Structure formats: C-alpha cells, structure tokens
C-alpha cells in the first residue's frame, strides 16, 4: 500500500467519524405535501391528455381502413378502363398535328 493510499485511508476513517449534523434526518416542513401535490398535478395532466390520444389513434386507424376499402372498391374500374398511353387520333388537336 502506497503512502498516499495510507493517507487516504486515515483521512476517510477520520471523516466517517464526523457528526451528521443537527438537522440530520428531519424532513423539511411541507416537503412531502409539495412532492405529492406536484405528482398528483402531473397525473391529472396525463389523465386529461390520454382520452384525446386514444381518440386520435382510433380515428387514424379508421381513416386508414376507409382508404384501403376505397382503393379496393375502385380497383376493377382502374383495371377495366386504363388511361390511354397514346394520344387519341380522334382528338381534334392530335388530328391536326398528325399526318
């Protein structure tokens, strides 16, 4: 053990003997009331926010479902009448340009 280790051990031994102080473990007046009031206020805020969160998430799920159903219902129409890729010859503008 080094000299510094010995010095530290003697110092920490001595420090452990220090009295804890007059107001040792006495709780400051009103501390528990303050802590509990703060906690319950925070809880109330959480409880107020929570129903809206639930409602918003359910609304999002319903909106997604409606989107999927609408896409499924429209699918046969999209497949039957595809958007023409080539310009229609009967179209007067195209007829003028094309020979």
């Amino acid at each position, binding site marked *: 053990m080094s000299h510094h280790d010995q010095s530290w051990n003697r110092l920490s031994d001595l420090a452990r003997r220090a009295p804890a102080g007059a107001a040792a473990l006495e709780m400051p007046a009103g501390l528990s009331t*303050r802590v509990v009031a703060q906690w319950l206020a925070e809880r109330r805020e959480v409880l107020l926010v929570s129903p809206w969160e639930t409602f918003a998430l359910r609304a999002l799920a319903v909106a997604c479902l409606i989107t999927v159903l609408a896409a499924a219902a429209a699918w046969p129409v999209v497949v039957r009448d595809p958007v023409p890729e080539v310009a229609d010859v009967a179209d007067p503008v195209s007829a003028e340009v094309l020979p």
Partner: protein
Amino acid sequence: MLDETFDVAACLAQVRRDDQAACKALVEHLYPLVIRIVRAHLPRRVPEEDLVQEVFMKMFRRLSQYEGKVPFPNWVSRIAVTTCIDHLRAQKRRPEYRWADLSEEEAQVLDAVTRDDHEPDPASATSARELVSKLLDTLGPTDRTVITMLDLEQKSLAEISQITGWTQTMIKVRAFRARRKLQQAFKRLQEREHP
C-alpha cells in the same frame, strides 16, 4: 433507519390508486434513506431539497415499472444514486484545489494524515469530512460514487452492485482507477504545500 413496521406493499397499492395520504406516507417513510444518499453524493451548488424532490418525482413517475423483484427501498436507492450521478455529470468543470484553498483546520488535517508519526485529532472529523469532499470534487461522477460507497459508506461490492446496477468487476476496476486519480489529487495538494 427505516421504519420496519411500515407496510410498503399495502402503501404502494394505495399509491397506485392515487391516494394522497398514502403518497405522503411513502415520501415520509423513505425520506431518511433518500436524504442519506443525496447528502453522501451531493453535487456542488445543487440544493439537497431540490435533489430529494427530484428523486421522489422520478420514483412516482416510474412506479408502474416497479415489478417487486428487488426490495422497494433498494429500487428507490438506485433512483437516488443515478439522479445524483446525472447532476454530477451535468457539472462539466471539476475544481483543482490548492493548498491555499484549504481552511486552516483542513490544512492541519491534511498534515496529520500524511505524517506517519502523527495521529489525527478525532475532534477534527468535520474538517476531515470537508477535505474529503474537496478531494472527491476532483473526481468524475462514477469514480466519486464508487469511492464514496466503498470508502466512506463502507458498502460491500455486492451492495454497490445492487444499488448501481454495475457488475462487481466493473466496480473493482472503477475503484482502482479512482484511487489512482485520488493519489494524484493528494500529490498535487502536497506539492502546493511544499513548492
């Protein structure tokens, strides 16, 4: 230390139902435990009452995560220690004390503990505590926590592991490194003494 007749399980059940009286009773029951930890690891410039309040708020917020695998006071101790470490981490600058920064009593204590032929005066225990606090201020948060628990609170490796969640090997390694840093701090203080 803690009132052993206090029924923690019953109190917790009531706390979970937002019973105000039970919340207060729980805070009052745990206060001696929390204040001891906070005082032992108190960072500079942070009022102890603020730190205690923060520990209790964290305890209530995390109560739903408590599964009862460890005794409730141990669970709260871990919250208290980690809260102190977080505050110590927030203090980026660590002071480097010189001989001139010590009070007359602290200088006498340092002189007494470094001389092999001289037994330190037990009446100077408070000054020794102040000097220890200054030396611990020079260490990093985890080093400080390990040394405080091992050398000042004389906790076993198993106890420290339970409170901090660190493995015993990790604690031993940290303690070894922390003691080396402490040696350096001691050396610097003495070099200032005899420039």
